[in-house]
């Protein structure tokens, strides 16, 4: 019953996230499936980007492989619980069962070690991306809760195995040595307790996932699949604006019923694409983007990580609003201005360092650009120097105020 309740709540929340993501604008990314699957294997499954820092990558790999493999054992644990059996698979697998459980135990130990290292690293080493004010409040606790939960879950798993005296598994047998003085009854009680805590813990963790930054373990895969395949320097075209310009040059081409597009760029989350919104849910707030950002690392307000966190926060808010009011009810707020300031947007050099660093194929730059488009084209909000640059381009065909006739003046000096 607990199993079905946990699964029910989990799927309900996932469906809600899916509908939030689908509030975004449509965009097609189904071309070149081979290249896209390659990205899934290299970036998501292979964690290629993580290996930019090998030490951390190996520890992260322990947790990742541990997570996947130990979940296989979870199958037995759950079925045991449902049928009231004990180590149901053992008779069928014979000697290989011990080998299998030994592998699980070694992984559990590695996960345990990695999480302890991560917890210590996160809280004692003064790494800029961990002490950053981006993480103040809930996000910082969130990260610690996840690590502590993993440590507790792994301890329970090992303790559970240590209490089944008839078995002699590689890691838990070491723990068994400390339990020698106990009676069979006591051991059985501890095993049962550990079993229950472990299974409840797993379900709780599963349901905590969608509320935490940890959702990347699921979304990294679709996010890698839908990652842009074009060179990173290419910005999305705006066919609506392209047509406006063509119609201005050739009025005869304009259809009689041509209506001007309703808005340009993105002011709020609904104006972004669903990929931008999936990016927001995929973000695990590691901060590699902000550490590499030239603006952030020289003390500017812009932080690509904060762009993603703000997008997710606003999306959650809009999602709740939509459910409460059966459709989004104007709340006088928007992603632009209320969540992300003009000063942040202005500091971006579009250098793509954030996009390059992200291990789960997120593009904070894409969101920054869309918000900038809205700022300029909807609000005519530009710094004076940019307005000067625009008018120079318009009148002199160069961003500076030079006479167009002098464009080839250099040829007379060679």
């Amino acid at each position, binding site marked *: 019953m607990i199993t079905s309740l946990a699964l029910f709540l989990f799927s309900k929340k996932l469906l809600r996230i899916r509908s939030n993501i689908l509030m975004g604008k449509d965009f097609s990314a189904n071309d070149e499936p081979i290249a896209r699957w390659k990205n899934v294997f290299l970036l998501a499954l292979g964690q290629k980007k993580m290996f930019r820092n090998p030490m951390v990558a190996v520890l992260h790999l322990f947790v990742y492989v541990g997570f996947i493999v130990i979940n296989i054992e979870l199958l037995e644990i759950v079925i045991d619980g449902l049928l009231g059996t004990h180590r149901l698979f053992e008779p069928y697998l014979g000697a290989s069962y011990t080998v299998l459980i030994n592998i699980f135990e070694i992984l559990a130990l590695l996960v345990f070690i990695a999480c302890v290292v991560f917890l210590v690293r996160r809280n004692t080493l003064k790494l800029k991306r961990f002490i950053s004010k981006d993480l103040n409040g809930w996000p910082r606790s969130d990260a610690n809760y996840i690590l502590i939960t993993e440590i507790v879950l792994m301890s329970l798993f090992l303790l559970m195995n240590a209490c089944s005296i008839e078995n002699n598994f590689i890691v838990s047998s070491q723990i068994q040595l400390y339990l020698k003085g106990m009676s069979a009854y006591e051991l059985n009680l501890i095993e049962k307790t550990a079993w229950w805590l472990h299974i409840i813990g797993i379900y709780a963790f599963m349901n905590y996932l969608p509320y935490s930054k940890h959702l990347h373990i699921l979304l990294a895969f679709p996010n890698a699949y839908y990652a842009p395949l074009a060179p990173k*320097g*290419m910005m999305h075209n705006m066919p609506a604006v*392209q047509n406006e310009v063509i119609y201005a040059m050739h009025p005869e081409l304009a259809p009689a019923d041509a209506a001007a597009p309703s808005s340009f760029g993105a002011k709020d989350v609904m104006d972004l694409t669903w990929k931008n919104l999936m990016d927001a849910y995929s973000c695990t707030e590691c901060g590699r983007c902000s550490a*590499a950002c030239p603006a952030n690392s020289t003390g500017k307000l812009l932080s690509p990580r904060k762009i993603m966190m703000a997008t997710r926060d606003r999306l959650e808010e809009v999602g709740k609003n939509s459910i409460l009011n059966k459709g989004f009810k104007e709340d006088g707020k928007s992603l632009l201005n209320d969540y992300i300031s003009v000063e942040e947007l202005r500091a971006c050099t579009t250098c793509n360092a954030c996009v390059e660093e992200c291990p789960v194929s997120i593009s904070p730059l894409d969101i920054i650009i869309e918000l900038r488009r809205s700022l300029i084209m909807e609000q005519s909000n530009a710094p004076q120097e940019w307005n000067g640059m625009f008018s120079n381009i318009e009148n002199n*065909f160069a961003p500076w105020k030079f006479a167009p006739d*002098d464009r080839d003046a250099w040829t007379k000096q060679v």
Partner: protein
Amino acid sequence: MKVNTMAEMMADGTTPEVLFWVGCAGSFDQRAQKITKAFATILDKAGVNYAILGKEEACTGDPARRAGNEFMFQMMAYQNIQTLNGYQIKKIVTTCPHCFNTLKNEYPALGGHYDVIHHTQFLQELIENGKIKFTDTNEWKGKQITYHDSCYLGRANDIYEAPRKVLESLDMELIEMKRCKSKGLCCGAGGAQMFKEEEKGDKRINTERADEAIAAQTSYVASACPFCNTMLTDGIKNRKEEVNTEVLDIAEIIAQAIQ
């Protein structure tokens, strides 16, 4: 040396093998003009049949687009594509990574399809094909140099090797900065930052990058972008290191070594 324009070539009934897209910085900025002249000299000496658009060239629209002004970008793109398609241009080489990126990646969606290469790639080709011959007294040989990756060549278009190969062809000793290639730090000019003051912060981005360049302790810093060149030169000047560290475009280095 005569630099032909497309209009002149068309009047003569000839077609160049490649169009040299000079860019606004290369045309008007005094420092960048030196890079343009160096590259034109190389093309001339290597016997490349090239032309420029001259007065018909206009801003690609890159800074307007990145600032968020898509209308301005579309207008410039429309105008340039009309000109380029009018001359039936097939191949373009440019000394500016921003022009390069826009012409190569963004014009195709608007009907401008060209084979676009950056001058560092073109130089690499010319050297490999033996079209560029160096003087016997190669003064660059053994000299230490560091290369600054332009974002719009590197991360934006995955071009990391061509500029390095060109420097190595001169037997220079390439010393990498702390952050290089895909981890390279921006000079601070991209995204239309060149045309406005930086936001409030602890440090200027170009000073940060200049400090890394100075820390490499080479006499020369190679750049492949006129904007990076300006930003790094200014940064190094701010640190009063300009006597020890000179910023040069790869085309300028080759031009000094060419026969």
